[in-house]
């Protein structure tokens, strides 16, 4: 039996459908990441699982309990990180940890957890005086301090620098090693790829892909990204505007763009790679600093969600958009 079971979840706010028939299972000890554009229903789903919102339709089970109905039993085994930590401004880090530890039967060592998250020097600092990243890390510590069976983390590492992000990932992995099942919302593809066993790609209240990160990537039309500088005589300096339209016309090339630094980037199928090389050779262009890599979850994200409606990553547009 999955630890989190979502069946036919639907939630509307007035006439807006936030979540429309979501089915999702999270196995015990799994880390499942929810990805998706803003307003695609990620937070609504997490808040329904946490029992903070009542679904309009569908059923929810968390560790055999029903969110909302079994509130007291559920809240003892679930740790939640909301987008805002929700703490009193004058509460110190240490006091917040003590308060939240006191809520649970077998809490972790809050101070040790804070130290792991580099909050050691801030233990006696008030919440309101912490930086955004420190508040974020405290929120994560408070979500995990009760050693929850289920952790629901909304926007795990938004606003964290790369080093803090790594630390947070390690802390989440440690929690999983102790048996915690994790459902997290993220905007960072790198985070999903590093941390998540599976990702659910949300778009307009529905799940458009649910697979391992690699599985989601391979599902896109452009599993490969090829990029190079156009060079005239072997030097790596960009020379003139390339004929992107001709490259885009090659079968299997889904998109072509010129990055700000002059690097030409193509999203394409594996089969199209030699075709492109042949074309370049025929035109006397030597691709400088050539890279052929797997598409990232970022590419899959743009490809599979409605963000592509604005043209980015849409097939064969041959656009020359600047890198976001």
């Amino acid at each position, binding site marked *: 039996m999955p630890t989190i079971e979502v069946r036919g979840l639907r939630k509307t706010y007035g006439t807006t459908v936030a979540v429309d028939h979501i089915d999702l299972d999270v196995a015990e000890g799994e880390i499942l990441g929810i990805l998706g554009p803003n307003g695609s229903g990620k937070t609504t789903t997490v808040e329904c699982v946490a*029992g*903070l919102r009542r679904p309009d339709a569908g059923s929810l089970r968390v560790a055999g309990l029903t969110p909302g109905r079994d509130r007291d039993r559920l809240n003892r085994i679930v740790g939640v990180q909301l987008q805002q930590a*929700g703490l*009193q401004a004058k509460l110190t880090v240490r006091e917040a940890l003590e308060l939240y530890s006191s*809520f649970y039967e077998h809490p972790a060592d809050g101070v040790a957890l804070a130290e792991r998250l580099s909050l050691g020097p801030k233990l006696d600092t008030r919440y309101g005086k912490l930086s955004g990243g420190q508040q974020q890390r405290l929120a994560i510590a408070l979500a995990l301090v*009760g050693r929850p069976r289920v952790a629901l983390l909304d926007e795990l590492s938004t606003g964290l620098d790369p080093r803090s992000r790594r630390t947070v990932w390690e802390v989440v992995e440690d929690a999983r090693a102790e048996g915690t099942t994790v459902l997290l919302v993220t905007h960072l593809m790198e985070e999903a790829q590093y941390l998540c066993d599976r990702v659910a790609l949300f778009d307009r209240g529905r799940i458009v892909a649910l697979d391992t990160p690699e599985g989601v990537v391979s599902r896109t039309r452009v599993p490969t990204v090829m990029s190079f500088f156009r060079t005239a005589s072997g030097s790596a300096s960009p020379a003139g505007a390339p004929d992107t339209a001709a490259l885009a016309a090659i079968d299997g090339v889904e998109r072509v763009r010129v990055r700000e630094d002059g690097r030409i980037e193509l999203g394409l199928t594996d089969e199209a790679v030699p075709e492109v090389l042949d074309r370049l050779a025929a035109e006397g262009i030597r691709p400088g600093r050539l890279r052929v890599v797997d598409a990232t979850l970022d590419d899959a994200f743009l490809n599979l969600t409605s963000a592509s409606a604005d043209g980015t990553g849409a097939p064969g547009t041959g656009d020359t958009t600047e890198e976001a």
Partner: protein
Amino acid sequence: MAASPTRTVLRTEVRLFLREPAALFWIVLFPALLVGGLGQVPGYRDPEEGVDGVPVIALYVPVAILLAMLLAAVSTMPVALAGYREQLILKRIATTPARPRDLLIAQYAINGGAAVAGGALAMLVVRIGYGTGLPGNAAAHLLALLLALAATLAIGGLISAVVPTARLATTVGAILLFPLMFTAGVWLPVSAMPDLLGDIVSLTPLGAAALALDAAGAGGWPALRDVAVLLAWTLGTGAIAARYFRWN
């Protein structure tokens, strides 16, 4: 078993309240400073120049106590609770074994307690400084003060329930404070108000509280009518607050 969340939340909230010097000053110290200062006005301590042989300063003790209640329940508590809603503190705690209502209970208890401390200090200042004020009928005083505290906290609870932000709660509290202070008799004792005004004010929560305290001060018991008015305000505003309170 973990300690009762209600208790740990209360302990934390007490700690936080002690970090609010402005609230502490207005609720706990200001009413005592006010009556202490009024005692320096020539004649205010003289029974001959008072009302029915009671010196004016003694009449101001119940008023100071009601003022402490208003500053706690109407000026301070709604700002805290609206802020807790606005900053998602109520929402976050709703996901823990503690409950949002634990924060409400703590805020009622702390602001009620601070008002009692402020009122007691005002009374002590007048008793020790000027040898007069309060007990007449001590039990009746206790009854009247409890009813007044319940009514002011219920009004504060109603503001907390319907006002969405801490900022707006500050404004609403400030706007309501003056009519409530007036009906409590801060500028003119309720018993000394002209007939029609007095009748109207006696139907307000603070007006009824002032009359009940006057009765206790005279050695008697509050009129049933005043008790009924206080209870009606407490239950009425409490019911509306419970109906409309938004947790997020």
